């Protein structure tokens, strides 16, 4: 009986329209913008030596807060928790390299434009000779749970999808031979290789992947303020500068 009560409560929680949302006025009053990101997703977000977060997503978040005239508080959360926390009002904004899917659009609001342009990429151990998904012949392909990489494989009906909680476990799995390949973005794969992972990009980009900044629903004023901050960062070259700094090239405009 107790369990069924808990179940009922959690069902209520999931269907309840979000009430605890901080609108722009709350953020200003608090003097702090709470921005969530993975924190384990180099070069987009990763720990800095002093324990804070650094990377492209982290600096974009700081820049947005600066332009809103508030402090930035960066919070690190596992990927599946990011949307749940936005809905619960635990975070104001996610600068977390999230791509758009219909399911996510029902749960949170997306800004009008992507903040960078990337692509899905199959990555395999350096010793592997595989050039495409089909070439893997049903061996396990690792993806982070709840990501569009997982969705991509499921939509393709790939027969052997292995889900892990994050990219770091996947690198481990590839090293240990538990997976024959992984799907991530071209940028993340390239950086891991540059940092000494014995991996290789296999074949061309599988699908365009254009991540967005997201926030909880029904916050039109906060959304407008963030859109404005992003527009000014594009106009004055800040976004491009951050992309060059962390990603080695400008991926904030669509590839030609």
């Amino acid at each position, binding site marked *: 009986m107790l369990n069924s009560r808990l179940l009922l409560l*959690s069902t209520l*929680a999931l269907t309840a329209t979000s009430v*605890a949302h901080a609108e722009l006025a709350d953020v200003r009053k608090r003097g702090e913008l709470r921005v969530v990101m993975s924190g384990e997703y*180099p070069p987009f977000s990763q720990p800095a030596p002093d324990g804070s977060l650094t990377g492209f997503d982290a600096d974009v978040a700081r820049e947005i807060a600066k332009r809103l005239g508030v402090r930035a508080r960066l*919070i*690190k959360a596992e990927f599946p928790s990011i949307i749940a*926390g936005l809905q*619960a009002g*635990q975070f104001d904004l996610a600068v977390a390299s999230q791509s758009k899917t219909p399911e996510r659009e029902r749960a949170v609001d997306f800004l009008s434009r992507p903040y960078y342009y990337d692509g899905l990429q199959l990555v395999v151990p350096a010793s592997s000779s595989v050039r495409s998904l089909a070439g893997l012949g049903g061996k396990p392909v690792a993806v982070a749970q709840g990501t569009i990489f997982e969705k991509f494989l499921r939509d393709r009906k790939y027969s052997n999808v292995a889900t892990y909680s994050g990219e770091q476990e996947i690198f481990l799995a590839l090293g240990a031979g538990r997976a024959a390949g992984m799907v991530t973005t071209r940028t993340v794969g390239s950086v891991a290789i540059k940092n000494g992972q014995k991996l290789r990009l296999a074949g061309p980009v599988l699908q365009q992947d254009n991540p967005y900044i997201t926030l909880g629903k029904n916050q039109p004023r906060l959304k407008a303020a963030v859109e404005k901050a992003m527009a000014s960062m594009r106009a004055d070259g800040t976004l491009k500068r951050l992309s060059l700094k962390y990603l080695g090239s400008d991926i904030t405009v669509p590839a030609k």
Partner: protein
Amino acid sequence: MLSTLSTVFTPDALAALWRGAQITLALTLLSSVFGLILGLVAGLGRMSRLAPVRLLAGIYIETFRGTPLLVQLFFLFFALPQITGVSLPAFNTAVLGLSLFAGAYAAEIIRGSLNAVDRGQTEAARALGLKPWDILRLVLIPQAARTAVPALGNQFIGLLKDSSLASVITVSELLLTTRGLVSITYQPVPLYLAVALIYFLLSNVAARLFALLERRLNRPYRTSTA
């Protein structure tokens, strides 16, 4: 190998591990204290003569003992703010969740230890004219503490390791800090070994403290048999 170690365990990485360990310790200590208080209240509640109090204590204990801590933390962090509109910071939510969880187990340990005190003790105290509250405070709790400490010690050392679940609600304790370090160094083996060692040392220190406490509580019994 040694050169790998010095590139993984830089002063910055060690400082990060130390910060994580402090948060883990703070989580454990705070929720042990609150858990003990909750456990005492719920344990006594379950022995109450008033049926509604017994029922309430029973519901609390069964709810938090019968569901996974992970689910409780998720619920408190993600669902509760949507139902109540109150949203606690992540650290406070973790302390709340761990305390409620620890309290449910501590309640049963405490109830068991109180029941284990010989019935004659209560009867003798009552015959001497002690009030119920004084019987509890002066007669039952001192004797029950002796039998409860080993089990409670077990429970709180378990809590030290359970506190790593707070990482799922964004508290940067020891485990989440380590995961972050793994993501920049790509060196999981030395880092996870180090984190295991830190947890081991912390629980070992805790075990020794509880052993000391146990010896202290046993002192009156040792002299009487000598």
